[in-house]
């Protein structure tokens, strides 16, 4: 199960324990199915790094501690990239993008959504996301047109 960035982010945020996203991620961690895309790792790391680079000394010390907690957390999860099998994941992403653009009206994805979806398709994983954009609902159909298979599980708060 590839967890989308929005799910990991919701899991890390202090909030209601019964939030559906938190419950879902906790279940995936418990049964060992949780993994993430390299894109999610990149997005989370750059967000934490930005805090580290921006603040005063005291803020930096706090940000450093949190960055290290994040890194330890991410180190404990399998992380999948697009580069395996001679970069085939990038080919899948290109086909997904083109399949979306060929629709009338065209379906446009944010880059992260597209690359994470392609990562899940490449590795035969289900993509779990809390994303509510209509384009995400079309992903399985577009994947089929793009000559690949993608299962998507939508998780709500």
């Amino acid at each position, binding site marked *: 199960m590839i967890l989308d960035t929005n799910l990991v982010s919701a899991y890390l945020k*202090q909030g209601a324990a019964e939030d559906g996203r938190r419950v879902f991620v906790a279940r995936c961690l418990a049964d060992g199915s949780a993994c993430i895309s390299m894109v999610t790792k990149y997005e989370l790391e750059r967000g934490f790094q930005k805090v580290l680079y921006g603040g005063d000394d005291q803020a930096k010390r706090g940000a450093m501690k949190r960055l290290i*907690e994040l*890194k330890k957390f991410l180190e404990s999860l399998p992380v999948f990239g697009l580069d395996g099998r001679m970069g085939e994941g990038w080919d899948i992403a290109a086909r997904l993008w083109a399949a979306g653009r060929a629709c009338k009206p065209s379906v446009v994805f944010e880059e992260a959504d597209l690359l994470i979806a392609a990562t899940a398709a490449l590795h035969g994983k289900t993509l779990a996301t809390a994303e509510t954009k209509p384009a995400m609902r079309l992903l399985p159909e577009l994947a089929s047109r793009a000559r690949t298979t993608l299962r998507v599980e939508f998780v709500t708060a």
Partner: protein
Amino acid sequence: MIAATPSTIGAPALDVDRLLQRLPADLRAQVKWTRKPITDALDALLQSPGDPDVLEAASRNAMKPIGAIMQLVAQLLASPEFAVQRASLMSNLEADQRDLSAFVADPGVVDTLDWCLSFIKGFYREVWSHLQSVDLSAVSRDEVAREVDESAGAAAFRRGVFALMAASEAARRRECVDDAVTLVNVAFLELEECRHAFAHAGVVILPFADETSEQRLHRMGSYVARMRESLTDSEFRELDAARLTSLRE
């Protein structure tokens, strides 16, 4: 394969004095000269614990004396009592960890230290599993120095271990706890870089290779709990703003 360097052919140690006490008196006498240059390098880093240039220079300056000690330790490891020596060196490292953990006290930093030490132990388990196929006498100091220059993974390992040695020294001297914390954090980042570099070369070292799934879950839970406790709303806004919407942004 991990290259033969003073760090990799020798033994893990944060407290050099404790390591030296394990050596027979005649061997200890041979490396008496190493105390001053190592102390000088540690002093330099303790004056600027967060400065990467100082860490690079100080850890490099300490390489020759540490290398001399490690070559003696490597001789012990090559002896018939290999298993006993190895167990004794590991217990040294555990004692170093206990002392430093007690000094830094903060649960998050103690946990980061545990990650670092677990990685180092995993590193040596990997190295020692190949030790019988390495001709230690063929690893001259010049070759060792050249290897360290060439390998990014070995350089990160050198810096990471030396940062921990300095943190350990700060604990022994009862100096500033914040400096020791900074050094543990720096060590983590260096050792993480080392882990990635070795993984890239095909050697995957898992810091907690023997843990059960329950232990892993518990460990991850503690990371998340600390992040939840300390992340502010404005930091979460920064995280949201860091989403990748376009490769051209």
